[in-house]
């Protein structure tokens, strides 16, 4: 109970700090248990300091920075117990091109470390270009979905 949760916390926190500094190219980050000394009752706060900025809680960061930080947390948990399948639905929407590239670098790293198969739903041209293959979903007939294989080069037309 308490033991297992604390062990998991330690491992996830270590992964989280490592992934955060990778994604932000530096800085510092930590998970902190708050509101109770009992790990079964405590809440989870996220303290982070992007390079050159001040240490603050998650809520004071920009939208894109918050998203990148949460991706570090989600994958910190993932690394502690990799699943056979991982599906990400438009998680890159608030990211600029530079951060989308770093996010894709992290996905490549996860592919190297695990056997996990990834499905990445996206509108971002940068992300599409980093995939091993693409499927397009279309509604040629109104209200009826169809799946088609997409040539990576023709992808841009489909997203619009």
């Amino acid at each position, binding site marked *: 109970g308490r033991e297992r*949760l604390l*062990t998991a*916390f330690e491992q996830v926190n270590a992964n989280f700090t490592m992934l955060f500094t990778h994604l932000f190219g530096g800085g510092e980050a930590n998970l902190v248990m*708050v*509101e109770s000394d009992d790990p079964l009752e*405590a*809440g*989870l*706060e*996220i303290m982070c300091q992007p390079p050159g900025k001040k240490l603050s809680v998650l*809520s004071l960061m920009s939208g894109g920075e*918050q*998203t990148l930080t*949460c*991706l570090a*947390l*989600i994958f910190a*948990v993932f690394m*502690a117990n*990799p*699943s*056979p*399948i*991982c*599906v*990400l*639905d*438009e998680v890159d929407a608030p990211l600029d091109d530079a951060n989308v590239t770093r996010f894709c670098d992290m*996905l*490549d790293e996860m592919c190297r470390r695990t*056997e996990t*198969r*990834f*499905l*990445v*739903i*996206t*509108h971002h041209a940068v992300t*599409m270009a*980093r*995939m*091993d*293959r*693409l*499927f*397009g*979903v279309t*509604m040629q*007939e*109104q*209200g*009826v*979905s*169809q*799946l088609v294989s*997409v040539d990576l080069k023709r*992808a841009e037309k*489909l*997203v*619009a």
Partner: protein
Amino acid sequence: MQFSRLRLTGFKSFVDPTDLMISTGLTGVVGPNGCGKSNLLEALRWVMGETRAKAMRGGGMEDVIFAGAASRPARNYAEVSLVIDNQDRVAPAGFNDSDTLEVTRRITRDVGSAYKVNSKDTRARDVQMLFADAATGATSPALVRQGQIAELINAKPQNRRKVLEDAA
């Protein structure tokens, strides 16, 4: 245990039988707003035993049945099947004597959901256990819904901790 194929029939906007092949590495899914991309993720969570209609964006479980479109009548059932490669034989006892496992869930209007594994009737709970033992399932933290990151950012610290519990 590796996932290899997801098949949808009458599930939300996928009225015609549709196969999504799940291969190694990174598979991208693209298309315009409203064309059905998120419905694919919902079908995967649904066949793994999702019980909360709210997590399917619906008011009730029957909301996943194709409700009709301009030139198509509504259906009265929805079915999703997931094919799993089990050559490494790590599936739980009772499911571990074949190379392939096909998990199927069908919901019929006014009747409810029924599960099968390799054509054998199976209880919902045993399907959920099968996936939980494989470090996945409908509530796996590795299945990130559209907008879920925004919820995590805005969540109170108490609710964020649930993410950690899934890792323990």
